[in-house]
């Protein structure tokens, strides 16, 4: 379970150009939920996602993951949580440019200590599902935006994390790939109980999930 209590996030705090990006967010995401954070561009979806994923610090408040406060942990402890608990799909893909698609997909599993055979099997399984199995030897710069997005999704789900945080995961996908991605996410969510939280304004995504969290100017809309 993820709990956010009174979370505020300011950029340029104390400066004339201060931005109040998240305003007193109180939010609970139950284990196994499939939710989407929805809202207009610039409303704070990515900031909220980054805060939940302990990628970014918060100005005040608490973020509790499975009963443990995680917002104020050391950088090293936050890295451990990102490695073992959370799978990220970034808006800008963020693939490692010098690694092939296969190496990118298997990267987190490798960091977690899986052996080559396990990694290879899992990578091929996911790649086939996302229809990028013929691109496994390619470097990211040789892939289209949609293909890179699928590699990024594959990397996030390959290690079967407890939580998947995805920022606009379908932004560069056509409808059939968006559908394949959502099907895969739903399978992960239903069969393996993975908690999934998307930030998206794609109607197809919004309509496919059970819970919609609406944000407006950094505040939750009830």
């Amino acid at each position, binding site marked *: 379970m993820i709990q956010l209590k009174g979370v505020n996030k300011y950029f340029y705090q104390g400066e004339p150009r201060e931005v109040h990006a998240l305003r007193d967010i109180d939010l609970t995401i139950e284990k196994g939920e499939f939710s989407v954070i929805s809202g207009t561009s610039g409303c704070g979806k990515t900031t909220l996602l980054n805060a939940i994923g302990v990628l970014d610090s918060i100005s005040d408040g608490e973020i509790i993951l499975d009963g443990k406060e995680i917002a104020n942990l050391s950088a090293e402890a936050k890295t451990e949580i990102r490695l073992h608990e959370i799978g*990220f799909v970034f808006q800008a893909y963020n693939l490692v440019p010098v690694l092939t698609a296969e190496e990118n997909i298997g990267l987190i599993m490798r960091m977690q200590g899986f052996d080559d055979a396990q990694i290879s099997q899992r990578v091929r399984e996911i790649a086939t599902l996302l229809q990028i199995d013929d691109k496994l030897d390619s470097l990211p710069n040789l892939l289209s935006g949609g293909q890179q997005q699928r590699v990024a999704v594959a990397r996030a789900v390959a290690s079967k994390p407890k939580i998947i945080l995805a920022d606009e995961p379908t932004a560069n996908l056509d409808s059939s790939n968006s559908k394949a991605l959502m099907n895969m996410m739903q399978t992960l969510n239903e069969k393996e109980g993975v908690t999934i939280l998307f930030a998206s304004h794609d109607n197809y995504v919004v309509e496919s999930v059970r819970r919609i969290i609406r944000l407006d100017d950094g505040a939750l809309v009830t």
Partner: protein
Amino acid sequence: MGVMVSIEGLYDGMSMNMIDRTKRSDSGEISLYANKYRLEHVIKYRISDADKKVLALQKITGVTEALYRLEVDGLAQTARKSKPSILLGIDLDDEKKFGKFEEFLKEGELDFGKNSAFIGGGLAKKLKVKIGSKVIFTAQDSQNEIKSIALRIRAIIRSSNINFDERALYIPRGEAARFLSVKQNSATQIALRTDETHTPTLQTTLQAKYPKLSVYTFAQLYPQLQQMQTMMDVFNTITFMIVMIVVFIGILGVMYVSILDRIREFGILLSIGYAYRYIRYQIMIEALLLGLAGYFLGLFVGLLILSYLTYQGLDLTLFAEGMEAFGMSSVIYASIKSSYFISTLFAIIIASLLSVVLPLRKIKKLNPVEVIRSAG
């Protein structure tokens, strides 16, 4: 690095060569004199039964060679010139065993004929004598009589020991004894070659055994050479430090640029859970590999240059006169010490590791979110 170890080798070679030649031509590692001889330098203060003492000394553990010499101050003259000089009574075979005397021959032949002498190169020049020239040496004998001896020059000697090159006339030890009216087994100096590790204890032992003699080590007899070696060590340290600073800056530059180039990759890795400590290890290993690659290349080049300089030497015959005036050989042979390579290895490891401190600070301060944002 190759050049640095070559310079180190040459500096060390230069000082070691001077020390070695001085030991071989004069003092050995230890010399014994009659008490007061070193102060007053007169034949009255001589060592008696030197032959027996030498035999006894040769049996002492740590002594590898021993010989005795008879020396007197006097005046060397030709028809046109005269110079203060010393007459040195030596045994040629002993000198060859003691210090490879034959290597000091510059001109002529090493064979004492009747009334013949060898002359130091500098003295020969001052007196303007050549092989075959005649020199008269005048000195006071043990009875305080002024005596002269006519000598024909058979060889010119260059030992690189200024004391002898500028002043010495060498004659057979027996002739010197007759000339000075002393017993054949009299000496003014007994010199010993010893195993260096035994030298300090030997000095104490010998001083206790021969209370009527003064026992000196090489460092006590030639403090200026010892000082020169210290000075060379300082030069080497300074050269070493300058090169290591250059190495440090070189590795720092390469690593800094390499890390800046990959800063996005590191940001991505951090954002997906790659621990900073692994990035730190990776960068440290990269820097070490870079440093060690340079080290082994330098080791190869350095060994090549040093091997050449050790066996062929650096021929500075063009400046021979000036160098010999300072007691240096005109061909400088380098020395190879494992310490050059060991200390350089450690310094390169330290320089490599220090060079990544700054780049690693940059990564540690990296906020992955900013990298992710900028990547979009």
